[in-house]
Structure formats: structure tokens, C-alpha cells
């Protein structure tokens, strides 16, 4: 029996169209727009101005607090302007726009392919370098990585869990990283283990990637304390709490963080970025994203410079198909629909999905037939049908009592509902309001 989480879950069509496509480097654009807020937490503070010359890897916006992240230039050239432009969220946010000139890197960055296994940095140095490099969770949540590595006083980390699940349909960037950068991922994992002072790491991978499981299992034999854990293909296996439940059979209490049960979770892409930052002095200026869709000519995986416009990666994959009805930043279950292809790709861009109109257009909502399927698929054990009604009736007291804040917004309920009810839309509204009320009470 494969390990998995025990409550709820669904199995959407996997559609991993780009799994066989090796990572290629996307051409450097003529202009990049690098938002100063690509992470959860306070936006970084720009430290460059119009006309400044920058090199690849140079700091251009400084972290403005503990929960914040540095931003580096992903190209060399001249700062064209620092201005508000529309980002993937659809809002206008401050970005540093750089006109590209050549590809000149800062000298201390090691650009060789050579694997550096020896970890010379100390625990403190590792956390500092991870913070300096502006590394955030690359699974999509973009939570600053150094914050998770700084275990709060009174708590102890017992195990590091590497999230290599990639449970979102379509996306394959983590899959390719594991196949092509296996050793780097494992060294990155050991660096994270050292920073957390744990001697055990578990890499959780869904069993729809047997080649990645086999490859990493073979490599992991050379590394101390790393276990590869194949997991059942079940969405949302990559949800942080679900992954912890699946791998170490512990449930993170409602409202608490994983450290409460001795676990720290990092994405596999993050482990690779940590390797590059600590061993190669390379800040987070590029990452891998999947560009995919059933009508797309060439679903593929690309290493892109942060700030590259979305339209470039679409062009690289053969251009926008005629029938495109929705452009999703991320996967089909939790990704965000984009309103424009001129917005930049950022640290959190794990993929871009072009969905045909028929597939993504919502069907007419019918009356709830009380089948209870939303309740049975909810991985948090909530009652989505009830939360929707309470949110609609503005019964915030009951919403709070029925644990609306536990919702991880995985979308399993809306995906499953036979009456096409927009369950998650309403639950999000309710969550927003209840969150406000709870903060006001404090």
C-alpha cells in the first residue's frame, strides 16, 4: 500500500504532457520587469534607480523585514525605470524594469556545471546565504525560505520533508528538475538538513513519476539520511499538511504550523535553488516553469530569467492556440487566471497552462442535491456545502465555528460538485471576512 493522506482527496486527469521534454533555457528578453513583491510578506525596497547599470545577480531590491525577500537582477543592462506595472495578480505593483544589454554576471557567481558536494558553510551561514539569495518557496506559495529554516525558540525540527509531489495536473517542472538535477537536489536537501540540524529527510514523490523515484532512490544511496518516499497519486498530496500526514503520519493541528509536529517542508525546486545559492553563490534569478496545454504545439519545460514576459514562454512553445479560453499561472487546480500575457514571470511561476475555452468555461449552477461529495473529498474534513451557504448568508460566527479558516483552497469541492456550484468562491469570501474579524479581535 502506497502512503497517502487519510481524509478526502480526488484524482483529476493528470495530463502531464510535457514530462518527456528536457529543460531548455529560454532566450533572454530585451526587457525584463522584476516586481519587488514576488513573495509572501513585505515587498522589498528598491535600491536602484533609473539609469543604473546592473549585472546578473546584483541586488536591486532589499528585503524589508524578517518575512520578506531580496530581489536580484536576472539580466545585465540598464535600469529603464522603477514604476508600477500590472503583475500576474492583475494589480499594478512596483517593478524594476531593466533594458537588457549582453549577459554579464557578477564575478563571484560560479556558473560551472560541476557538482559541489562538500558543504563548508555553517548552519548560520546557510540561513544567511539562503536569505541573501532571496529564495522563496518555489512550489507556488513563495514563502521566504530562510524564515522556515529559522526554527522558533522552544520548537525543534525532527525531520525535513522535501515536497516533490507535484500533484497539480499538467505541471512537470519539479519532475524534470529531479531527473536532470538529481544530485544537486540531494546536496540541497543536505544543506537544508544542516541548517535545521536534523539527520533525517524524506523526499515525497507521487508514483506517477516512477522514473524520478527510481533515479533519486539510486542517487540517495550516496547521501546520509535521505529517504525517497513514493506516494499515491492523489490530489492534494502536495498540500503541506497532507504531505506531512502522508509521510510521517502526524496531523498538524488546526491553525498551527508544521514545526508544531517537528516537520519542516520545502519544495524540491527550493532545494535546488538552495544548492545554487549556498554552493555556487547564485541568487534566485531564474527558475524552471512548464508551459503546457492540450492545444499547445509544444508543451515543454523552460529555465527562464525572472521578469521575462509571459508571452515569451508562450512563443517558445509554439504560440497561443486559437481555442485558448484561459491562461493560468500555475496548475489547473490552484493556479491564477491571468488577464494579460504582458505580465512578467516571477519566482512563483511554476507553470503556465493554456486551457481550451470549452474545458474551462463554467457550466450553469444547479441546486445542491445534497449528495455529500464535497464533504467526502475535502482533505481538511470540512463541509464545503455548508460553508458556502453560511458565507452567502453572512453567518460569520458559524463559518468560524465550522473551521472555515482550515480550508487550504485546494478546489477539490468545486471540482467535484455535480451541480457545478462555486463552492470555493464563496468559501474564499467567507475566509476573507472571518480572517478580518479574527484579526480585529486580537
Amino acid at each position: 500500500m502506497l502512503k497517502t493522506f487519510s481524509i478526502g482527496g480526488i484524482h483529476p486527469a493528470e495530463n502531464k504532457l510535457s514530462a518527456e521534454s528536457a529543460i531548455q533555457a529560454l532566450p533572454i528578453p530585451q526587457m525584463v520587469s522584476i516586481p519587488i513583491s514576488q513573495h509572501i510578506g513585505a515587498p522589498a525596497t528598491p535600491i536602484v534607480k533609473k539609469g543604473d547599470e546592473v549585472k546578473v545577480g546584483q541586488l536591486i531590491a532589499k528585503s524589508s523585514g524578517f518575512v520578506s525577500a531580496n530581489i536580484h537582477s536576472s539580466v545585465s543592462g540598464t535600469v529603464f525605470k522603477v514604476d508600477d506595472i500590472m503583475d500576474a495578480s492583475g494589480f499594478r505593483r512596483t517593478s524594476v524594469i531593466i533594458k537588457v544589454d549582453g549577459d554579464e554576471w557578477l564575478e563571484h557567481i560560479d556558473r560551472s556545471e560541476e557538482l559541489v558536494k562538500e558543504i563548508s558553510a555553517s548552519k548560520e551561514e546557510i540561513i544567511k546565504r539562503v536569505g541573501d539569495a532571496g529564495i522563496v518557496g518555489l512550489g507556488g506559495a513563495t514563502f521566504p525560505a530562510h524564515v522556515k529554516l529559522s526554527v522558533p525558540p522552544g520548537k525543534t525540527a525532527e525531520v525535513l520533508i522535501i515536497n516533490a509531489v507535484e500533484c497539480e495536473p499538467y505541471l512537470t517542472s519539479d519532475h524534470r528538475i529531479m531527473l536532470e538535477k538529481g544530485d544537486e537536489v540531494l546536496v540541497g536537501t543536505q544543506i537544508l538538513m544542516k541548517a535545521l540540524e536534523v539527520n533525517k529527510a524524506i523526499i515525497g514523490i507521487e508514483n506517477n513519476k516512477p522514473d524520478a523515484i527510481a533515479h533519486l532512490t539510486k542517487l540517495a544511496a550516496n547521501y546520509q539520511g535521505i529517504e525517497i518516499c513514493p506516494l499515491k497519486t492523489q490530489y492534494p498530496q502536495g498540500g503541506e499538511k497532507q504531505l506531512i500526514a502522508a509521510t510521517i503520519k502526524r496531523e498538524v493541528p488546526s491553525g498551527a504550523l508544521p514545526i508544531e509536529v517537528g516537520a519542516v517542508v520545502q519544495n524540491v525546486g527550493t532545494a535546488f535553488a538552495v544548492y545554487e545559492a549556498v554552493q555556487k553563490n547564485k541568487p534566485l534569478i531564474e527558475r524552471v516553469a512548464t508551459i503546457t496545454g492540450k492545444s499547445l504545439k509544444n508543451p515543454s519545460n523552460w529555465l527562464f530569467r525572472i521578469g521575462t514576459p509571459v508571452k515569451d514562454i508562450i512563443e517558445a512553445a509554439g504560440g497561443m492556440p486559437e481555442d485558448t479560453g484561459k491562461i493560468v499561472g500555475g496548475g489547473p487546480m490552484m493556479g491564477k487566471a491571468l488577464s494579460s500575457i504582458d505580465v512578467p514571470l516571477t519566482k512563483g511561476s511554476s507553470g503556465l497552462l493554456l486551457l481550451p475555452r470549452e474545458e474551462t468555461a463554467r457550466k450553469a449552477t444547479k441546486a445542491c442535491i445534497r449528495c455529500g461529495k464535497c464533504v467526502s473529498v475535502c482533505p481538511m474534513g470540512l463541509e464545503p456545502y455548508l460553508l458556502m451557504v453560511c458565507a452567502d448568508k453572512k453567518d460569520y460566527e458559524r463559518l468560524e465555528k465550522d473551521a472555515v479558516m482550515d480550508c487550504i483552497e485546494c478546489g477539490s469541492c468545486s471540482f467535484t460538485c455535480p451541480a457545478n456550484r462555486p463552492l470555493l468562491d464563496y468559501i474564499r469570501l467567507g475566509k476573507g471576512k472571518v480572517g478580518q474579524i479574527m484579526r480585529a479581535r486580537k
Partner: protein
Amino acid sequence: MNTKVLVAPSPHVHSGDSIQKNMYGVVFAMLPALLFSFFYFGLGALVVTLTAVASCYLFEFLIQKYILKTEVSINDGSALITGILLAFNVPSNLPIWIIMIGALVAIGIGKMTFGGLGNNVFNPALVGRVFLLISFPVQMTSWPVSKGLTSGYIDVETGATPLAIIKEGLKSGQSLSSLMDKIPSNMDMFLGNMGGSMGEIAGAALVLGLIYMLIRKIITWHIPVAVIGSVAILTGILHMVDPEAYAGPVFHILTGGLLLGAIFMATDYVTSPMSNKGMIIYGVGIGVLTVVIRVFGAYPEGVSFAILIMNAFVPLINVYVKPKRFGEKRK
């Protein structure tokens, strides 16, 4: 690029499941039992089914179109299910006009007064059935004797159901072991060779439908297992206490409407609880009430009443029985 794209919150894809798929899935699961009823009761079964289904469609259409003046949704399959279930729950020699009254009560009072599909508290087919049972007790309890495919409709020979034979026999002071000789063998009862309502007799066909619905994930195992399990345990205990006064679990499961009720009526989405825990409580409630009515009550059969009574408790169960939450603090 000037393509207009949709911008909406996640999730961006849907399973493709729909109300129709589930409803017609249930209809497909009822086909074996329907075929068995044609096989045992011939013309009568055909007339009763067609009348019930056509009347349910007609009344739903008329009420939605002319009284509620809402969108007509007779294609969602729920009226078809109510029609077939109503037919399953009556004898195959029931006059057409009585069936039509049953359909009117089922759709009109059981479903539409509450606001249509999704809002009714009680199972519509059972509301119709119980209304008929109380209003036309003679016609509703004259069970035709199976004559196979060539069976006629109104003028057929009638006989008692095994449950009625046992109930009457025990009341008149006969011993259970002597009564057992008068009822069909277990295998005959499982295959449907006994008196009873059209759709309830063939246990084998009903179980086939259950397996289909479980595989297609239309329903979960919780309700059928809770109902049948609790009846088996309770009647098993009673039988062990006094084998001469109480029939055993096999008899109780195979006779009357227990399998039909547990598989197709207690599992009705709209009138059953939302959580797995709730479903088990509801199922056990139905099982216990059925046994109490059958063994200690005035009626020989109690499944319909048991389901309707438990239907009334569903809102209460939904409020007080919560699913197991992830990361719930253990007390």
C-alpha cells in the same frame, strides 16, 4: 494578441460529473430489478411502471410550468427515479388511477411543495407510497402471485407476502418453525420468487444495482451497510433469545422492502445525511426502526416508515454530526 480570455478563480477544471450522470446512473442500477419484475409479473409490472413514470414526469412538468412558473427541469432524471421507485413500491395489479394519485402526492407534495429537487425533506416516492398504503390499504396489500412473463394485470390471483404470513401466523398462535414451511426457501426469496411489491422481491437484482452504484461511486457503502447490518444484528439477537417467536436475520433481510429501501431509497442524496458518520447513524436508525415496526408493530412491514422517520432527523444529524476534521484537537 487580442484574444479575450476568461479570468475566474481556481479551480479551472471540473470533474465533468453532473446531476444527470448520477441520476441516470441510479436508473441504470435499477434496471436489473425492473427486468426481474417484468419477468415475474409480466404485463402488470409494465403497466404500473409506465403509468408511474409518465405521471411523475407529467405532474413535475405541469407544476413547474403552470404553478411555480420556473424553469422546467424534468430532464435531470430525478422524476424518472421517483417514478420507477414508486412503481417498485406497489403491487403489480394496482389500478392506474391509484398509481396516478400516488405520483401526484409523490411529486406534488413530496417534492415540489418543498421547492423541487434538492430541497425536499422526505423521499418523494415513499411519501407517495405511504399515502397510498394508508388511503388504499386493500389494494396496496393484495399481492399478485407470480405467473411469469404471461402474468396479466388486474385480474390476477393474489397471495400474502412472507412477512404477512409470519405476522398473522404468530398472532394466531402458530409456532415459527411450522410457519417457516409456508414461505419460500431462502434461495427463492433471494431470486424474487415470492409475493410482494414489484421491485422489492428480487434481492439478487437489487444487490447487482448496489454493486454498480458503488463501482461508479454514485453512492458510498455507509448507508446500505448500516441499514442491513443493524437489521442483521438486531434480528440475530432476537432470534437467539427466542427462535420460536422471532425469525432470523436472513429472513428479515430477504423479505419485504429491506434491500430495496437500503439500496435505493435510504441512499437518496437529498434526504440522507452529508457526512459518512451521519450516514451510519441514519442507516442504523432505519435498521432499528424497521425491526421494531416489523416485530412489535401493527404493520408486517416497516421499511418505508423507518426511512421517512429518519428522513426527518437528517437536518438534525447534519447539524450535530461533523466529519472528522484534519488536525482536530483530541480531547
